[in-house]
């Protein structure tokens, strides 16, 4: 038997499904919402349902969008170069940093044999289909340098080169503020491989 009335119990159960929220926190949040003003709880409920109704996935690059194409794909000044990322969060980080001014392509994951994720489960086919119509000459692979990410990078780079596109990948190595002494062997190896002429 629950100690809460059924509607409160439902709210707690729903909140506890959110990432990082356990039963205890969910109960605290639910009680807070119960005590909060009617305007606040109604505005929260509306904004949740609006997000589900209005935000979709860009049919071209798989970024978040409120239209068929996302803002970046609609911007005519951002063309020519494509940056491939693992997920939307990575795209947003690059945008926030202002690090890149071309278009993106979100793979929606990486090759993960142990999770049963192969090339057909990622947006690789869609990536290759964009090359010609958008006259893409250069692709930057900005996939996270995990084992699975590195495999994905090599695999996609091979496919793109076959299409005659120039391919590069983001540098991997010592992070800013890092220290060689405390850096592991794989990173040191990659940092050496990725060295460049000093400016």
């Amino acid at each position, binding site marked *: 038997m629950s100690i809460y009335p059924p509607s409160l119990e439902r709210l707690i159960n729903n909140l506890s499904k959110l990432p990082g929220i356990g039963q205890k926190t969910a109960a605290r949040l639910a009680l807070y919402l119960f005590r909060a003003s009617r305007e606040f709880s109604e505005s929260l409920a509306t904004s949740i349902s609006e997000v589900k109704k209005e935000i979709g996935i860009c049919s071209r690059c798989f970024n978040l969008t409120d239209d068929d194409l996302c803002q970046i794909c609609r911007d005519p000044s951002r063309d020519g170069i494509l940056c491939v990322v693992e997920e939307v969060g990575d795209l947003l980080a690059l945008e926030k940093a202002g690090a890149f001014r071309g278009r993106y392509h979100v793979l929606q994951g990486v090759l993960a*044999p142990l999770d049963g994720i*192969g090339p057909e*489960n990622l947006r690789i086919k869609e990536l290759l289909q964009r090359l010609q119509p958008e006259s893409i000459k250069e692709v930057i692979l900005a996939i996270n340098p995990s*084992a699975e990410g590195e*495999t994905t990078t090599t695999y996609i780079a091979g496919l793109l080169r076959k299409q005659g596109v120039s391919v590069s990948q983001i540098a991997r190595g010592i992070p800013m503020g890092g220290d060689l002494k405390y850096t592991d062997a*794989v990173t040191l190896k990659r940092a050496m491989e990725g060295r460049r002429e000093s400016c």
Partner: protein
Amino acid sequence: MAIRRDEAIILRTRDYSESDRLITFFSKNQGQLTGIAKGARRSKKRFVHTLEPCSHVAVTYMDRPTSGLVRLDASELKNAFIALRSDIARLGYASLSCEIVLHMSPERQANAALFALLYQYLEQLEIGAKPENTSLLFQTRMLHSSGYGPNLQGCVLCDRQLRTGENWFFSILQGGLVCKDHKHGQQPYPVSMGTVMLLRQAQQLPLSKLWRLRFQRQSRQECRFLLLDLVRHYLEKDLKSLKLLYQIGALKSTNNRI
């Protein structure tokens, strides 16, 4: 509670909570264990890519008798088998073996022979050995050293010996050979004498010499699904890594069962 240090191969990693990860590893002295790596998601510093599947690591963990899970305190990379990352087929086959060990080795049961087999298998893939051949050798040896046979001395349903028969078949249900008179109702796979002799060698040769064996075309075709189906029969489930191997064309999804 005891703090242990051991060598291990990472079999699987999963997100556990907002900041932690669950790591399943096959250790040399304690067999398969699953541990919580606190903070492995949020701060990459402490476990910086030492917890990737198929990596060989030195782990320090706290064994807690009250919980099935151990607490992973440190992990130091010994061999990341980096070359696997440059070839999707090799990574696919490496993952397949980690997945087989994950499902077939019981928790907390040391099996030094299996540890050595898995380690050498990854090492072979790393130095460029042919992935399918290496994988077939691994599967044969893994089944044998885990006590699953299979029986290759003669028909498991009558007394007929290998040298006295001609047409031989393999029965998944019986876990061994059947002669032509006993193949009915066994969903048999035809196997040539050459294949049977090769499998017997793969069961018995010293581990260091195992990797010299070659499955020629016919044996490769005969064994491709026979061994995988045997593994799946014992596991009573499918293997996720096969999906990627099918998708990249490393395995064709036809079966040679008659």
